[in-house]
């Protein structure tokens, strides 16, 4: 891990917004309280979003040959853009430019006075020490394999293969090459048994009927076909004349004129099943004039074209019957009898329908290979035994591993309706791998191999499975493409061998030296966004509350919390996403575990354990942010925090 920029010449520029901020903030006092290292300068500028402001900025950069900028001002995008542009002209990269949102974190949320100025100084100082201790960010050029492997058979697999083929070689597994696709290779009847390597450089072991093959690909798409089953909630008897919607065929030599067919849809089935049923119902009416009765309890109209098909079917004379309890179904020589209570009719006598055939709605079952493949690829499974955990950040098609995606019902039946659209979305992700080379800045976690004791903690813990063992270096190795820079591993490593370039231990510890009485460790994805929103909404809260930004609550090291108290803080708050919507899946759980440990330490040191708290919140929960920080401040003011 690199050491800080050899020569730090950072300039701090306070934009007073044409004097608008000067009424509230005392810039003189703020500037004089900053701790500047040699080579660092500070200035107050009237309006940095204007051309004159940028000219002044340019002159100052040139005069002091600055190589870093802290811009403290409003939240406006044009301010950020203008400053980044000027910085760029002077060869100052985006990682040497830091913005401080004085507007939302200070001006809009606190009353003027000493604590407000101190907070403004602190957050600016935090940005400054952050840059001071920031190592140069390396630009990586990674060689990767352009080919993508599609695992599965059926529509979803064919669709994503066709999309990907427009941009890169495609290898199909477990599928005879569909006609018309110019595949790089196809391995019919093969099973994936193991995968090593990471996104961009996967090495897949395939077990065929006779032999094992190794295939190298950049990305993997799982597009397994899912078996279908008549919705068990419908409680239908097994009998001739009753079939599932996916096995009902109209093209049989049978004449459907004068026949009657009932469609019975359940409640929990897929949109795909409803869509197919509506399609068949329409065809039976239009082509053959058959009598069609359609039973449903909740009409699914949210999917593509569903509403349209439903209306059309009504117009064409399909009879729609809503039921509360699924119809009672009997089969005899006359046909299929359905007994049901029509909620429109008050009569207690049940209604009856006699039809020749009953077509039943279906639910998808997980593909039988799901568990095995999930193990081989180290991707998590989700609800109902399908792929993909229920997490907003993974939707629609991502797995917990970079470079592994899903298409179709295999990751959840809800995705089956528009596989074509999903295939396109996945192809857009795959495009990253198509060129055989990826350029990216090294902002991901890095292992110091000298310090690494190979304890395997990071390897076991990483939610994205981005860690491998480098046997030559005898150290863990974090893959820059696979790593999502959550920093969970850095906070867990018992040898302190892992650092995130922009949230280095030395940066955060230094920032903690300039933090208030109450410190809110704020996950970028939730807490920080909620705090900024509180600013936008001008929701006031006590000015002694200061934020320390972290990439994920899972990066909040127990040592950070303890250091805060050592420095004299009286309370700390961990602001994390809800467990089910944590971008790094485990962040909330790790924060919770460290909270418990920190509380034990505080208790033995004679500090009330409740002085450190955890608050889950969403990015838009400004009120929750305000409430939780205010509650903590209030309880500090009321209660004596020390137990001895």
């Amino acid at each position, binding site marked *: 891990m690199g050491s800080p920029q050899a020569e730090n010449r950072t300039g701090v520029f306070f934009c007073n917004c044409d004097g608008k901020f000067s009424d509230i903030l005392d810039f003189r006092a703020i500037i004089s309280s900053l701790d500047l290292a040699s080579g660092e300068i500070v200035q107050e500028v009237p309006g940095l979003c204007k051309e004159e402001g940028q000219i002044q900025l340019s002159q100052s950069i040139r005069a002091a040959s600055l190589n870093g900028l802290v811009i403290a001002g409003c939240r406006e995008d044009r301010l950020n853009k203008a400053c980044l542009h000027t910085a760029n002209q002077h060869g100052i990269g985006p990682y040497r430019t830091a913005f401080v949102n004085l507007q939302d974190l200070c001006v809009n949320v606190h009353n003027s006075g000493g604590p407000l100025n101190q907070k403004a100084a602190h957050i600016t100082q935090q940005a400054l020490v952050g840059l001071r201790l920031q190592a140069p960010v390396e630009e990586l050029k990674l060689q990767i394999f352009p080919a993508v492997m599609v695992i599965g058979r059926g529509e979803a697999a064919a669709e994503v293969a066709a999309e990907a083929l427009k941009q890169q070689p495609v290898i199909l597994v477990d599928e005879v090459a569909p006609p018309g696709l110019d595949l790089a290779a196809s391995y019919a009847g093969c099973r994936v048994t193991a995968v090593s390597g990471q996104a961009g450089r996967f090495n897949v072991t395939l077990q065929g009927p006779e032999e094992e093959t190794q295939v190298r690909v950049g990305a993997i798409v799982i597009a397994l076909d899912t078996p279908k089953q008549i919705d068990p909630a419908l409680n239908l008897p097994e009998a001739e004349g009753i079939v599932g919607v996916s096995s009902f065929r109209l093209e049989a030599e049978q004449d459907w004129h004068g026949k009657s067919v009932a469609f019975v849809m359940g409640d929990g089935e897929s949109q795909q099943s409803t869509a197919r049923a509506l399609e068949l119902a329409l065809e039976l009416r239009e082509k053959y004039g058959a009598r069609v009765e359609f039973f449903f309890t909740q009409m699914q109209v949210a999917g593509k074209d569903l509403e349209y098909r439903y209306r059309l079917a009504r117009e064409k004379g399909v009879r729609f019957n809503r039921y509360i309890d699924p119809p009672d179904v009997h089969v005899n020589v006359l046909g299929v009898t359905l007994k049901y209570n029509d909620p429109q009719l008050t009569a207690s006598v049940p209604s009856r329908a006699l039809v020749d055939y009953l077509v039943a709605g279906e639910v998808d079952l997980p593909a039988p290979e799901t568990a095995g493949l999930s193990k081989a690829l180290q991707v998590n499974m989700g609800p109902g035994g399908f792929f993909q955990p229920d997490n907003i950040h993974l939707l629609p098609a991502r797995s917990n591993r970079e470079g592994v995606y899903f298409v179709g019902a295999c990751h959840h039946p809800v995705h089956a309706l528009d596989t074509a659209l999903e295939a396109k979305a996945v192809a857009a992700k795959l495009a990253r791998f198509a060129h055989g080379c990826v350029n990216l800045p090294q902002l991901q976690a890095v292992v110091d191999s000298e*310090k690494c*004791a*190979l*304890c395997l*903690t990071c390897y*076991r*813990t990483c939610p994205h499975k981005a860690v491998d063992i480098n046997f030559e270096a005898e150290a863990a190795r974090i893959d820059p493409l696979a790593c999502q820079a959550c920093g969970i591993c850095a906070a867990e*490593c*018992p*040898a*302190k061998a892992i650092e995130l370039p922009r949230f280095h231990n030395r940066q955060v510890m230094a920032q903690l030296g300039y933090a208030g009485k109450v410190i809110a460790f704020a996950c970028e994805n939730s807490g920080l966004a909620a705090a900024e929103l509180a600013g936008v909404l001008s929701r006031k809260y006590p000015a002694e509350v200061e934020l320390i930004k972290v990439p994920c609550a899972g990066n909040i090291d*127990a*040592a950070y919390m*303890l*250091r805060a*108290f*050592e420095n004299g803080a009286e309370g700390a708050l961990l602001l994390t996403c809800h467990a089910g919507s944590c971008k790094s899946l485990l962040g909330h759980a790790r924060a919770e575990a460290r909270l418990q440990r920190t509380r*034990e*330490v*505080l208790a*033995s*040191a*004679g*500090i009330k354990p409740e002085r450190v708290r955890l608050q889950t919140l969403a990015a838009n929960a400004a009120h929750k942010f305000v409430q939780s920080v205010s509650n903590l401040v209030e309880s500090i003011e009321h209660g004596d925090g020390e137990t001895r």
Partner: protein
Amino acid sequence: MIVAEAKTLEEIFQLVEPFKKILVAGCGGCVTVCMAGGAKEVGLLASAIRLSRRNNQLEVLEQTVLRQCEYEFNRELSSSVSEVEAVLSLACGVGVQSLAEQNPDKPVLPGLNTKFMGLPLEQGVWAERCQGCGECVLDKTFGICPITRCSKSLLNGPCGGSQGGKCEIDPDVPCAWQLIYDKAISLGQVDRLRHIQPVKDWSKSRDGGPRKVVRGDVRLDEIGQ
């Protein structure tokens, strides 16, 4: 590896109570891997101690060496050691003693309880596997150590306390001899267990007093003489 566990904070605060400046010394070997005494734990413990003494100043230095059971590595600690009144070692008992030997005039305090030689069953769970008995019998017991994993260290088990595959001391502890029999059955070698093992020579274990391993072929002073 050697598995250890932190002493309670209350105990540690008492240990360091008389001092005004101490060094918390970590070890980069086994105790880093079992998460009890590496650089991370050194930092956390140092913080905890400082917090507990926030009204009664105590200065805490922190340093971690590659392995505390090597005199050479410990020399890196010498300047910090000379500055402090006491050293709190977060190594296993071996590390604590090597530091104590090297620094005869400094109190060297143990921050951990050294537990056993074992392995992680999963992240955060470690189990004992060897007692260093001095004469390994794993060849006769299909790779399952009866000395360690049988609560009575029987060589011809199981005893009458084996119930449903569990040891009588605790329903969560598998009976080692059940495990040995199961393994023998799966290998089709139960016959091998018909041999009665003779009494073990415990003098090669702890019962013979402190032990030493001497390797003449690698010793340097032999040649130097």
